């Protein structure tokens, strides 16, 4: 996929979420959520099912009105009619109108977005869905429908992108290409990106926001996260007696270390024992622990 053309959009928006509670039919799903975003980046929103990730996205997009609290973008309070301005929202459901061909569906989005026919042609190429352009949406696979749904986000530029599970139902190749597009976007834009894929989150996110029971449990830089157990896996070129005492997971011998700084010493020790190392990698993902136990809040920006 080609890289989206991004014109300079000026200053990065400042998003302030101040004590926001929101939900459905009077039942609070989000409770007293506060954060401030001042930097273009991908902010990965994590949390178990029902934690409130989608509710957060819907509230930030202006779909849901907060029961209490305020959301401001560049100091301006957003309300129910604000959504059409600066925020792109990609729902976890496709949102593709029935009974239309792919090109017609994109023209529908273009009408809503005030984009032109040339924008439709551009995103057909960008998302590599031109071969699908004349097919009815109902004839597409779920992954193809997802790509059509994502295409509308690129019809027009916005300052803020709220992407709710954008790579669900996509095959690994397409998911990787979508991540590349989103990474490119995040150089100049604020992207909130919810996902259940912790490895994807770690790969693309600079910040992580964890929602637990409707509350913001953590908001910090992903690189600042440390696993309580730092475990590395070691693959060797050939069997070695020196590795006999190590537990094994698949082809990897496991070794728990105090932290990444202990890796060089481990390598030297193993090499001195004649172990021929093919690969050494960190086995755990610190994001996994965010689901396991209530983490400490590392930072609030």
């Amino acid at each position, binding site marked *: 996929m080609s890289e989206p053309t991004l014109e300079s959009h000026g200053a990065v928006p400042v998003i302030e979420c101040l004590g926001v509670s929101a939900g459905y039919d009077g039942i609070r799903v989000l409770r007293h959520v506060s954060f401030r975003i001042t930097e273009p980046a991908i902010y990965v929103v994590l949390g178990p099912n029902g934690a409130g990730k989608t509710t957060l996205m819907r509230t930030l997009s202006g779909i849901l009105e907060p029961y209490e609290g305020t959301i401001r973008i560049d100091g301006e309070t957003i309300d129910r009619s*604000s959504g059409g301005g600066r925020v792109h929202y990609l729902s976890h459901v*496709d949102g593709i*109108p029935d009974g239309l061909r792919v090109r017609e569906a994109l023209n529908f989005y273009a009408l*809503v977005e005030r984009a032109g026919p040339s924008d439709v042609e551009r995103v057909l190429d960008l998302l590599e869905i031109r071969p699908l352009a004349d097919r009815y949406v109902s004839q597409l696979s779920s992954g193809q429908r997802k790509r059509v749904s994502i295409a509308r986000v690129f019809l027009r530029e916005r300052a803020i992108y709220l992407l709710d599970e954008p790579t669900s139902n996509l095959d690994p190749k397409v998911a990787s290409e979508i991540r590349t597009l989103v990474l490119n976007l995040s150089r100049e834009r604020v992207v909130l990106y919810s996902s259940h894929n912790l490895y994807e989150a770690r790969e693309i996110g600079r910040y992580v926001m964890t929602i637990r029971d409707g509350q913001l449990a953590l908001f910090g830089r992903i690189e600042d996260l440390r696993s309580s157990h730092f475990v590395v896996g070691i693959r060797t070129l050939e069997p070695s007696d020196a590795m006999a005492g190590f537990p094994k997971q698949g082809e990897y011998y496991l070794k728990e270390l105090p932290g990444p700084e202990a890796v060089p010493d481990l390598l030297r020790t193993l090499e001195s024992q004649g172990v021929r190392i093919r690969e050494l990698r960190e086995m755990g993902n610190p994001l996994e622990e965010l689901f396991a136990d209530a983490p400490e809040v590392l930072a609030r920006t």
Partner: protein
Amino acid sequence: MNPGAAPSLLGVTVRRSLSTGRFFLGYGTAISVVLGVSLALSPGSAFASTFPFLLPIFVVVGSMGGMVVFTNDRIKGVLEYLLAYGYSPRRLFVTFLLTALALSAVVLSVAVAVGLGVYLIRGHPFTTQLATLLVVYAIPMSFSSPAFAATVGMLWTSLSSPRAGMNSPIGLIPFIGILPSLVTLFLLTTLAVAGVFSPTELLLVAVGVAGAVVLIVVALLGTLGRFLRRERLLSPA
């Protein structure tokens, strides 16, 4: 934040409803045309005395495409998408209501043109009574009944969990949509039995029922924000 009013979706919604609701449109149009032609070919004035009263019932059926698209859009998350881009629930309701009226106009115009055409070609006169029934009853009721059906149907769909089959808003709304026509016919029959039926009573009843239905629709749309939370338009998926 909002750089301007969100663009009108009426044109594209009508086109989508013509496509998605083509079965309802075709059925409503066909059955009203068959009815009109059958009555026009019948001896006497059966067409003039019956056709205007039955026409609104079939127009309601033909206008169901808008309701089908609304329901599909809610389930598929299209309404959620539109809410995020600045469309209010009231604006969405009005768009689909106008769509239902546009579909009604299609059924009504085809049925009247064909039925009345055959009736006149057969040598029947275009009487004042027929003109009055068409203008005072058939045409107003052919718009107010679908408007009532569409508004109640959209509210019902929004306030209930999606379900399929006849026991769903789409399955039941045609029966609700013909209520204004049934009320009118009931009142007219009651007046006829009481021996007080005259063109004046016909005018009062027809205009009264159509006006009441329009008032109900306007009141429902006007107070939409009070009893329909925005989240009721979100996809339940």
